[in-house]
């Protein structure tokens, strides 16, 4: 009897959690944030190349990815790097980076993707404001 009551309580908690989780997921899947931009077809192609060559294993976007290479979130707008420098790096390789053989179209697509990522925000975010309650207000572009 006691076990049945326990089971009923557990089932009720589970049902409640799943219900809240469903609403939560729906909001996340449907919500658009201001910082997000719609990728153009060229940038989507660049994104596909990014995944096909597993660039993420060495490079990061927003600090997410491997640590062998630098973070590329804002490399497109970096005054010391920028599109021409990135383009030159693609097929030249470096000490750790393999030499790739991207076509001109593929290079443009990758650049369009990095440009689109760059427009969504900053990383590292030097303008972020740290509040006394431990929260961080990240800055937007």
């Amino acid at each position, binding site marked *: 009897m006691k*076990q*049945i009551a326990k*089971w009923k309580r*557990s089932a009720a908690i*589970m049902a409640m*959690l799943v219900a*809240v*989780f469903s609403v*939560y997921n729906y909001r*996340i*899947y449907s*919500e*658009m*944030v*201001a*910082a*997000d*931009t*719609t*990728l153009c077809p060229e940038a*989507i192609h660049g*994104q*596909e190349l990014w*995944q*096909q*060559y*597993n*660039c*993420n*294993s*060495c490079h*990061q*976007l*927003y*600090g*997410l990815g*491997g*640590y*062998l*290479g*630098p*973070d590329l979130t804002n490399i497109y707008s970096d005054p010391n790097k920028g599109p021409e420098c990135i383009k030159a790096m693609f097929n030249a390789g470096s*000490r*750790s980076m*393999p030499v790739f053989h991207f076509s001109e179209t593929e290079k443009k697509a990758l650049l369009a993707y990095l440009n*689109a*990522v760059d427009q*969504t*925000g900053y990383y*590292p*975010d*030097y303008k*972020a404001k*740290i*509040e006394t309650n*431990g*929260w*961080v207000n*990240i800055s*937007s572009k």
Partner: protein
Amino acid sequence: MKNKTALWFLILGLIALLLGMLFGILSGMQYLLPDFLKALLPFNQMRPLHVTSVLSWIILAAVGGTYFYLSEFEKASLSKRLTSFHFVVYLLTGLAIYGCYFTGHFGGKEYLEFPPVLILPILLGWMLLGSQYFRLMIGKCKTWPVYYWMWATGIVFMVYHLCESYLWLLPSFREHFIKSIEVQWKSGGSYVGSWNMLVYGTAIFLMAKIKADDSIGRSRQAFFFYFLGLTNLMFGWAHHIYIVPTAAWVRYLSYGISMTEWVILLQMIYTWRKSLPTTIVSGHPLALKFLAATDVWIFLNLLLAIVFSIPAINFFTHGTHITVAHSMGSTIGINTTILMASVVFVVSRIDPDFDEKKPRFLLGFRIFNGSLLIFWLSLLAAGIQKSHWMYFTKGTAFSSMQDSLHWCYCIFLIAGIGIFIGLYLVTIPLLKILLKACGA
């Protein structure tokens, strides 16, 4: 034991662990010697080989353990055909993934880098496990101890979150970078939570069986912590992306509840160990040693997790090796110690002459834990140095920062080799017994 497939899962898991550590050492070498194997297996191929192998160890050992415990302790009549089919599906999928990585064929996102079509057999495997689990166990669900709830939850949520991690295939996600990265890390955080449900469930199961007291899995406290863990699995993932401009409410919610998951198991193991009679402890000394090591690693990773779940601190640790210290500290220190205890327990059941007190095991156990501590500390040191470079130096090139971390990477590599040696000493005898039991 008639159905030996559970043992084959464990054998494959242990082989994946050994391969994963080998690829890990080779990856570490590439940090120190950039030209090392660069032409044959560059880092963008080596890293997924390492990560996939190690994750396969966790999944295969957890699944194999679940099948074994169901048939041995619940006397459940698992379908030999379905279990074998599950094993063959995972074996062939694993080989296909290795083939893709060796030949440089990717297409997926981080941690699931293989071509997306290969997620289908992986999902099929989870559904095969789920179909057997629920077919055999659902009739008894009103009397389930907490670990059966955890296994059920782990299976269901694994299927859901693996599907979710491929939402990027839909244009409405793929065309929006922030939404895509948000859902990627939501699903990633939660499928880790799902396998943790299986692994932690295994830990509680082992405690109950070693102690020969099932009340540990039936207490009010056990269920309270289970639901707290489930809440974390559902809503506590956003600490991965505090710095990404997603909706603030998602991050606020996560800040409130994240990382209490570690408290859950610590509390349970602590309570269990305090009340464990010494006569029973002596029955499974090696399994107990691994579970005791879990205690220590939970404590260390709990501390780290609490610290960087505070956004103001996460701001400085994100994107540094401190995150890696946490993820590797958890997968090696917590998941691997629990699953090693599970494999040792299984081996002691199938081979009554198995001697857990062999000096080789004690030596391996000590080398493993000592090396893991050094490994973990070297990552923390590297992370602190990288964070300093990111926020407190200006104009220093990335390559100079990497060069300055050379000494950290040396220690990291030596400690990684130590972890390999330690686990090798423990793993090989276990593998031999499992293979013998399977008639191989």
